[in-house]
């Protein structure tokens, strides 16, 4: 069921029309649309938006850590349609010991590095990703720096040293 604030959001209506179980919520705030997507349906949602709603560009993929809430991670996708000059934000909540979500590299090849970055800095895994390795940090790095329980100066050094 679509929230009332999204009644003018065409893309949301399209997804809802094809499968009402994909969107679990959303809101319009400060002129931006946000759709909450069921994590296991993210690839379906992206495919519909790309093929039916001209969202040919994936602007970025990132995550927000809401530690200590559970599920703690929000994986955030920003989509853009050049043709309609529209932007859309998709969000999936993932959590647990080993948070995981399906990769959207099959829809946009360019999701590759964005997902690797999220994997590297947040420790969220992407099922079906062709090359899931660390991107920014060295391969033998321990921990995921952008998690909220990771100290700013790291584990190894402190300001006292």
């Amino acid at each position: 069921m679509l929230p009332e604030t999204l009644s003018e959001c065409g893309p949301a209506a399209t997804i809802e029309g094809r499968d009402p179980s994909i969107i679990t919520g959303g809101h319009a705030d400060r002129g931006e649309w946000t759709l909450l997507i069921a994590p296991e349906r993210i690839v379906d949602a992206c495919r519909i938006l790309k093929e039916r709603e001209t969202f040919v560009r994936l602007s970025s993929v990132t995550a927000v850590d809401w530690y200590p809430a559970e599920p703690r991670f929000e994986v955030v996708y920003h989509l853009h349609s050049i043709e309609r000059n529209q932007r859309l934000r998709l969000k999936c909540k993932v959590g647990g010991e080993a948070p995981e979500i399906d990769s959207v590299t099959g829809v946009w090849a360019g999701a590759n590095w964005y997902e690797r970055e999220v994997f590297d800095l947040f420790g969220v895994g992407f099922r079906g990703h062709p090359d899931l390795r660390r991107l920014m940090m060295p391969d033998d790095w321990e921990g995921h720096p952008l998690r909220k329980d990771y100290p700013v100066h790291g584990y190894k050094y402190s300001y006292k040293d």
Partner: protein
Amino acid sequence: MPDLKEEEIPLAGGEARAEETRKRRMTVNMGPQHPSTHGVLRVVVDLDGEVITQAAPDIGYLHTGIEKQCEAINWHQVVTLTDRVDYLANLSNNLVYALAVEKLIGDIEIPPKAQWMRVMLAELQRLSSHLVWLGTHALDLGAMSMLFYCFREREELLRIFEMFSGQRMMTSYIRPGGLALEPPRGWHQRVKKFADIFPSRIDEYETLLENNPIWLKRTRGVGYISVEDMLTEGITGPMLRGAGVAWDIRKSEPYSSYEKFDFQIATRTGNDVYSRYQVRMEEMRQSTRIIQQALDGMPEGPWKADAPKLTLPDREKMKTQMEALIYHFKIVTEGVRVPAGEVYQAVESPRGEIAYYVVSDGTSKPYRVYMRTPSFGNVQALGTLLKGRLLSDSIAAMGSMDFVLGDVDR
């Protein structure tokens, strides 16, 4: 250099040639300290003779954890970090952060003078960035003197930035709520003098390059990548416009009153290194037009918003007014409180789409600042761009991307 069409390039493959191919194969490590990568980019290149069969960019050598640091300092302090993301387009980064914070706050009105100043500075920054690109790109391809011509003009631009902000590169001049300082005396004449002379300088660059047969041979028809690949891989900016896609955020989602300026989106349809060069040259001309318009029609009035809880008070007022002193104390010690919410703000930087995703939880520090930088999206497509091309062309193709490694790694 032989003039190879795409289908004639001897790509590796085919059972019969497998053995011979294995003998000719070689893996070359380019970078991270290779001068043509303009920073610390490492590319692992698999070669079959002179032809690249696979190119894998490896990044992270300049990762400084800027996004993590943003979460530990208050809203105003983040401005200084945004400078260091893309060190050739500092003001563009300042601008996108300021716009994002202002969008989060909501009910704040930026006075026209500040908006026009922002447009003018962002365009001066575009000129400065394109000049570095032109100089170094031409240097890579053997036209050495271009560097000296370009840096002659860039020097004047950096002096103008220094005049405004006291810094040549890390300006931090555009702040949430307006500008950091009052524009200095005499800035108008100085920028005017530059804007008047600059179009003739662009002509000068063009005579140096357009009549140079080596330049033309090394750029025309080199560095093709299909528009579909560009869109799915995340390439933005002049690369996309060089392939005929007329998408410029200054036009499509105007910010900071860009809609009041008269300029055209520079596009070419060649989709090669030469087209991208032409697009950037045209963009420099258009930027100069915008600067001229900003100078002629610069509105009078305040240079920052009337928002005492957001912007620092005037120094003079602090000496005479109690409230100003209190606000100053609160902003500096406690920081500004920004209402909870999230925004995604995009602007057109010299390299393409730069967008900040800023999340606030209502405290005086950002909860999350994500920087979608144009170079990151562009470098990601390097593998697709270089595959099947000659190694000698890879320098031209990489140069035409105009990436900044600080922008990639953050």
